[in-house]
């Protein structure tokens, strides 16, 4: 993103172009109408969120995850069976999920 767009975001307003780029990152195919509404709604929300810029504090205040991660016992447990997975999948063939071709002339 450009420096200008970054400043715009920090000020609390968000342009339609930035919204369009974020929708691509989020894998959401939004309509033109949705993009306009989203730019308006996100700008409103970000103006309220801008209060965060008033908070000071050094980097040592960033929280850790919490307690130390605990290791799970290393013992086998039954997992999902292929037929259960196949029953849930929209398209499934010979043990694999089917998706549109990712290679040309595949």
């Amino acid at each position, binding site marked *: 993103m450009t420096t200008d767009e970054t400043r715009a975001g920090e000020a609390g307003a968000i342009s339609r172009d930035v919204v369009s780029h974020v929708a691509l990152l989020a894998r959401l195919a939004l309509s033109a109408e949705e993009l306009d509404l989203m730019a308006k709604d996100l700008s409103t929300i970000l103006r309220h969120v801008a209060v965060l810029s008033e908070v000071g504090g050094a980097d040592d205040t960033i929280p850790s995850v919490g307690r130390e991660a605990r290791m799970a016992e290393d013992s086998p447990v039954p997992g999902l069976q292929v037929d259960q997975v196949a029953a849930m999948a929209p398209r499934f063939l010979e043990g694999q*999920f089917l998706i549109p071709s990712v290679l040309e002339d595949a």
Partner: protein
Amino acid sequence: MSGDRALDLPIAEASRLLEKGDISARELVDAALDRIAETDHSIHAFLHVDAQTARAAADRVDRARTITNREPRPPLLGFPYGLKDNISIRGMPLTCGSRILEGYTPPYDATAVTRLREAGAIAIGKTNLDEFAMGSSTEFSAYGPTRNPRDITRVPGGSSGGSGAAVAAGQVPFALGSDTGGSVRLPASFCGVVGLKPTYGRISRYGLAAYGSSLDQIGPLARTVDDCAAVYRAIAGLDPFDSTTLEDPVNPGDEDPDDLRGLRIGLPIEYFDRGIAPGVGAAIRACVDRLAGLGAEVEEVSLPHTRFALAAYYVIAPAEASANLARYDGVKYGLSRRECSDVVEMVASTRALGFGPEVKRRIMLGTFALSSGYYDAYYGRAQRVREFVRRDFSHVFERVDVLATPTCPTVAFRLGERLDDPYAMYLADVLTVTVNCAGVPALVVPCGESEGLPVGLQLIGPHLGENTLFRVGRATERVARR
């Protein structure tokens, strides 16, 4: 006694009748199913009811009871319950209130469901919610809103509005909800029932559809504090399937609720000056005065970073949501768009079709907050605020045992009133999100009325302070009845 009358009794009392054989589990389950049939057309608390499986489970309980007297008796033996439809149970559809999970039935049980089954409880159906638990009114369900049983022109709160409404309407003695920023406590307050957001890590999240993983907790809603505590104790504890669960033992609590001598209650000043409706503030203060009459010492305290918490929450929760909901891609389960030319188009168009407006808004907000150039300004600062909020609570719990606050600035608002203004909807959470940011427990107990609608007292405790909350909660019930 009929099953219908027994359904309205506290769990401990009805349990004694079951034990003596005065009523059967089948009668209780049939009574719950009848209530749902009579009332749910106007309330719409349930998305799915599995009468056949529930009746079969009740019959098994009744048969087993006549053959053997199991000792110790499972604490919830024979009691029907509802569970929020973002919690997995084998054999019932899981929608999360979203079209994107259309056709999906989970092949496994959530740990909370497994533990309720071990405690003898019978799942009767799935309750309505804001899509993926994102909302404060249950109006953002793809399957239509739930209405508040106290006034069907009002919302039941959200996002566990179906669970709150089902308990308030007497359809079930208790229900499970989930609370990421207030989603158990708002419905409890708006519908006039009891609701618990446990300490983070107290109840396994295994089988709960993830929204904000560092904030999410499953919590019970019930008619009384004792019932809520019984459900909590049945499902809390360490779970190997959730590495964030805590090892600390779950202890019973049996202190006298009529004597609060030695208990210190803090009133955080920041929770009483944020646009609180006068009737709500008055009900809370009147209740706290009565608790003082039982011997509690009451003092004003300060949680100075409260005013930043809502902004921090609405960065952190959407950021986590944007990552958690990336799994809904139309490939492995649920809705999937066909005839797309490439994978990105298939994923993006499936998600556009399957997600509703509030979920899209939060995914976009979270993706934006985590994107290059914005991360430090939003997510980094929000995490810093979260730590300050946590420290505020740590400091204040060195002085007091419990905090008493309103749950929401207002009573239940009207359906449609806040739908066009996302931030107005978010403001309903302004007094609840701090608790999730800090990971501490909070209990909501009905304490009075304003405008003829329930007002819930929010009791906030220190880390693992659930038993203190139950003690003060029981006292609140008693003074509220007087």
